[in-house]
């Protein structure tokens, strides 16, 4: 089972590397979105520092959602998704493998870019470590929840816009606690509870989302 899992992850990573610029585009979107915010609210350092954590989180969330549409879509169109469903491992394993690859190609680059943007937004130094920590715990949750939506929109009209309508409300808890942890750290308050709750979200979505996403994919290729 682990062999198949590894094979799917490697295949998706290789596709992402060779087919092009997916990860780069996601990071570029992330950077531009954050920069747009500073044009939107003005260059006032105090204001920017105050909203830095929220802006980075919202932009990361949108960036990771943008790439979700392609999570199953290409495999669905060329038929390899059906082969994955016929593979000798449960479809849930294949879904987790694809989500892992998606996170490695989009979530991880976002986390690498985040500190740089935090500097641009003049975020308080206290928050840097915790920002990376919450993004590390939070972005896999986003990918997992997003996989359900990506499975549901397969074969529908207007996939991308629909995906955002389905998924963004479900992202709200992660956003609240992700921003809350950074704000608490900057304010000098304890932030352990936020981290633990984000960890609980990750554990819960790791247990439930592959199941729901596999059900969604299964009904799409039926």
């Amino acid at each position, binding site marked *: 089972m682990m062999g198949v899992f590894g094979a799917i992850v490697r295949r998706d990573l290789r596709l992402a590397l060779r087919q092009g610029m997916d990860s780069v585009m996601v990071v570029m979107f992330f950077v531009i979105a954050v920069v747009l915010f500073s044009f939107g609210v003005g260059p006032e350092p105090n204001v920017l520092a105050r909203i830095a954590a929220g802006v980075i989180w919202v932009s990361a969330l949108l960036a990771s959602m943008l790439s979700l549409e392609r999570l199953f879509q290409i495999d669905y169109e060329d038929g390899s998704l059906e082969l994955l469903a016929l593979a000798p491992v449960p479809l849930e394993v294949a879904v987790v493998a694809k989500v892992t690859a998606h996170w490695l190609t989009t979530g991880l680059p976002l986390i690498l870019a985040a500190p740089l943007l935090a500097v641009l937004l003049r975020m308080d130094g206290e928050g840097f470590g915790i920002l990376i920590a919450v993004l590390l715990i939070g972005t896999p949750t986003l990918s997992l929840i997003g996989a359900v939506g990506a499975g*549901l*929109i397969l*074969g529908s009209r207007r996939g991308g816009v629909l995906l955002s309508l*389905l998924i*963004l409300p479900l992202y709200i808890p992660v956003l*609240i606690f992700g921003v809350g942890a950074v704000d608490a750290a900057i304010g000098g308050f304890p932030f352990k509870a936020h981290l633990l709750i984000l960890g609980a979200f990750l554990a819960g979505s790791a247990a439930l989302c592959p199941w729901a996403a596999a*059900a969604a994919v299964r009904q799409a290729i039926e």
Partner: protein
Amino acid sequence: MKRIDYLANPTRFMRLAAVLTPWMGWATVLLAAVGLYLAFFVAPPDYQQGESVRIMYVHVPTSWMALFCYVSMAVAAATGLIWKHPVADLVAKCTAPVGAAFCFLALLTGSLWGKPMWGTYWVWDARLTSMLILLFLYLGYIALVNAFDDPARGAKASSILVLVGVVNVPIIKFSVDWWNTLHQPASVIKMGGPSIHPTMLWPLLLMALAFTTYYVWVLMVRVRGEIIANKIRVLRLKQVHG
């Protein structure tokens, strides 16, 4: 179990709906008339909020109904997925617009009530925010159910979505509560009985009942409409092929 199977046959469901529809319609009219009379003329104005407290008799039942409809939708969706129950899929599909309307009305009456009470139409308070998110969940469902050329695909995909949503609703509620809170705590359903005077409780309960029968009434009409539309489609296809 047997009863669920019984209604899986659309013809049987149509028979039941034909009987139930007028009863539910008249029950709605009657309950709403009595409830509104009590709410407007019998219930006392609040010592703090004055006459504007009467918005409560619409606001609170619509909020309850918004949640109730979501739960009904989830139950219907689960029934449709597990037992491949064709009428349950239709029930889920037809509940969504009604629930979304209740949710919207709850938000609208809430903001109209908020203006005189809190001095503003909208505050980012926990309860208001979670109702707004519930409205988004409804809209997402409606968008997904209509996004496929094959209605069976739409029913299945949206059933999965609604089950994911129902797991998430308590989590969203809890997160938003953590995030902010200003709304008054629940005063009807709590330990040690309601803390609201009977002259105010009765119109509230009657209005809640009226909205529930209204929901069943509209649901019956809508599901019958869907079944008839399906029949017409099948007949048209037969005409084309035959």
